[in-house]
């Protein structure tokens, strides 16, 4: 049932990439438990604007859990206290009346803060550019049904491909490793005959790029899998390691 709750928000404010940040505390009254977390942020911003202050900058777009744009570290968890959801799908019914909520940006060397809660995740695009594709150009490809693909492989590829590139795995990792993200892409493509051709080379190039961009090493703590809103499995990391080894052996 719908209820109204009052909240204290401790929000990270930071004017620009080079400025020092700080927490600011805000009070919000009568927030409907049916509203989403980002709608609660909208209400906060409306209040800030009406009081003559600058609203809090945060990333979001689809508000359906698919674009991967929203982020936020909420009470110490990426995407907040609910499981298997992004911040935009988190609803206020997960919070109690009178609760204090701490809201921070992703914190990771690979993702510098741009403003307030917004970080720069361009590194993910750079990693994909290093090899996260099949090297085919438009046109001149075979019929879609020319190569049958076992349903289990297609389904498994789909599961890996459902990564939304949000970066929660990196944000939650004590080493700031991007292995879950990279392995999801390597797996997605390695599982399909169209992507298998370049699988080893792809794994090598993407991992090299990841290392170069300052992401940490994977020490198999499994924290990433727990926080991934799309349930991307760490078994993908094992597959990445296999492809990576193959590439090394071929060298």
């Amino acid at each position: 049932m719908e209820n109204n709750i009052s909240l204290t928000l401790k929000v990270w404010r930071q004017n620009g990439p080079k400025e020092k940040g700080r927490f600011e505390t805000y009070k919000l009254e009568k927030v409907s438990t049916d509203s989403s977390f980002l709608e609660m942020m909208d209400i906060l911003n409306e209040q800030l604007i009406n009081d003559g202050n600058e609203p809090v900058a945060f990333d979001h777009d689809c508000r359906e859990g698919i674009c991967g744009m929203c982020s936020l570290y909420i009470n110490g968890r990426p995407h907040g206290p609910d499981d298997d959801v992004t911040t935009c799908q988190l609803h206020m019914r997960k919070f109690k009346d009178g609760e204090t909520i701490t809201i921070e940006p992703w914190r990771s060397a690979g993702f510098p803060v741009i403003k307030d809660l917004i970080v720069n995740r361009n590194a993910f695009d750079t990693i994909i550019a290093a090899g996260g594709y099949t090297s085919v150009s438009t046109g001149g490809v075979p019929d879609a049904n020319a190569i049958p693909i076992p349903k289990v492989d297609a389904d498994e590829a789909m599961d890996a491909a459902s990564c939304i590139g949000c970066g929660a795995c990196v944000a939650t990792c004590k080493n700031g490793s991007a292995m879950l993200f990279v392995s999801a892409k390597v797996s997605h493509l390695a599982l399909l005959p169209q992507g298998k051709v370049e699988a080893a080379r792809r794994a090598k190039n993407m991992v090299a790029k990841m290392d170069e961009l300052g992401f940490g090493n994977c020490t198999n703590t499994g924290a990433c899998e727990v926080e991934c809103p799309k349930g991307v499995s760490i078994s993908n990391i094992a597959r990445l390691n296999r492809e990576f080894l193959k590439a090394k052996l071929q060298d």
Partner: protein
Amino acid sequence: MKLDSKIPQGPMAEKWSNYKANQKLVNPANKRKLDIIVVGTGLAGASAAASFGEMGFNVKNFTIQDSPRRAHSIAAQGGINAAKNYPNDGDSIHRLFYDTVKGGDYRAREANVHRLAEVSNDIIDQCVAQGVPFAREYGGLLDNRSFGGAQVSRTFYAKGQTGQQLLIGAYQALMRQVNAGTVDLYTRTEIVDIVMVDGKARGVIARDLVTGEFQRHFGHAVVLATGGYGNAFFLSTNAMGSNGSAAIKAYQKGAAFANPCFAQIHPTCIPVHGEFQSKLTLMSESLRNDGRIWVPKKKEDAEAIRAGKLKPTQIAEENRDYYLERRYPAFGNLVPRDVASRAAKERCDAGFGVGATGLAVYLDFKSAIERLGEDAIRARYGNLFQMYEKIVDDNPYETPMMIYPAIHYTMGGIWVDYELQTTVPGLFAAGEANFSDHGANRLGASALMQGLADGYFVLPYTIQNYLADDISTPRMTGDEKEFVDAENEAKAKFEKLLAIKGNRSVDSIHKELGLVMWDFVGMARKKEGLEQAIEKIAAIKKEFYSNVRIPGSGEGMNVELEKASRLADFIEIGDLMARDALHREESCGGHFREEYQTEEGEAQRQDDKFTYAGCWEYQGEDKAPVMHKEELTFEVVKVAQRNYK
């Protein structure tokens, strides 16, 4: 203004081949000398930019999001059509073409639609080669499902995340070109104007959303693939950042804006539930394959449900009104979107609606679960059901879903000829941003098809036909007078907004606009209402320019400033939509004028007067635009009253 559709000669099925056989091409050495600007990285923009890069052109590609992969196309759930006929159920290019023209209520240009159907199969091949993990059968071949408005199964899908997978395919192809150095990518960068030199589009003015700085970019040609303008309604299924600004800038530079009033209302969205609501969530149309739509047969049951005294599961089968199955036995729950939306509104207006507000109907999976088992339903729609449960806090495996129509897609957009060129030479438009293929109503799973058709298989040909005459045009530096003037003009607009320093937030004014749009320019329109809407929108415009409050400055990131500049353009679009709806004295597709309906409440076209695309030409600030007609002729399709009974 001259509207030359440039439809190639020859029989319908040969036009595209004829065009390709006779068009001009650019040789590889010259391609390197030519720059193309692509605005947008959705399906249309990413596929075009990647393909141009592969061909050897120099591409600059822009997006307002932080990554090309976040474009709104990512949110498409249901699927993409193609005429493969893998299920052997009688599909063909001709049938896909025919269904699309008919589904669009005979307001689309036949030749474009035929080409779309022709290239649809290539899209599926291309995507599979990229590694798009479409759903497959146990035999390893691709699976299909059916969608509204079709009697064949021609929809390819990847779970409930088809748009995501197609966009990731295009995005990866794009990033491969970024790596190869053929595409320069500009993320978090918004195009705020188009630069004209000697009557041709020659570049854009961009604003870096992180620093607030303005940039000048030259291109021999400019492609707009900036998506639809449904967010004029504030509440829609579109992403929060979806906007119509680039389209409005093009219009103000002389591009005709066609059929602005053709907006699609999607029948299956989660109903509005509070004032804080920021967007509406679509429940994919694919759910109508297995879900049955109903409301109570008895008014007292509906009232008891609204008061919270009765649950839908307590209503016996004989007391349920499966109104789509009742009214449209041939298509049942799979009637096209406009028909399904109006039928829901009709039942709710008549007092049979459910939910606290009475503005909702049920979408019930009980029979499907009985027939196929819960696991099968979970495999098909698991993520959609989860999404519903997270939002509504109700389990759709046990209780029927509640749905209501919402603004979803805009068929109208920038007018383009057969080559996807606007009335401004050198300015092209692709994807949802153009008006081309869907007439007055788009069939499910055909926007993804159109976006990728435009980007992979149409523009790479047609743009060469234009650029072939431009091989000796040298690159401009961006320091030419036209660029400097355009930048100064754009800057002045932003400064003007910042200087208002009024009392109201951007969102509060946008919500006001949205309500006017929904009430008067929404699912049912009439003359008096539309006239009122035009006045109300003018008043909102005045309020906006005298009372909007934008905290902060133009330096650095300023989200409110971004929103304000987009709202300024939504106000223009709202006005255009209302004018177009007022002038179109007929009902067709998504445009329903209450004055024009049959006795059974079905839409009634006025073919003798309105078989044309209404193309609006800008006349200057605060001047009424002028409408031109592109008459539509139908050589192949037999124009008839749509009948889904």
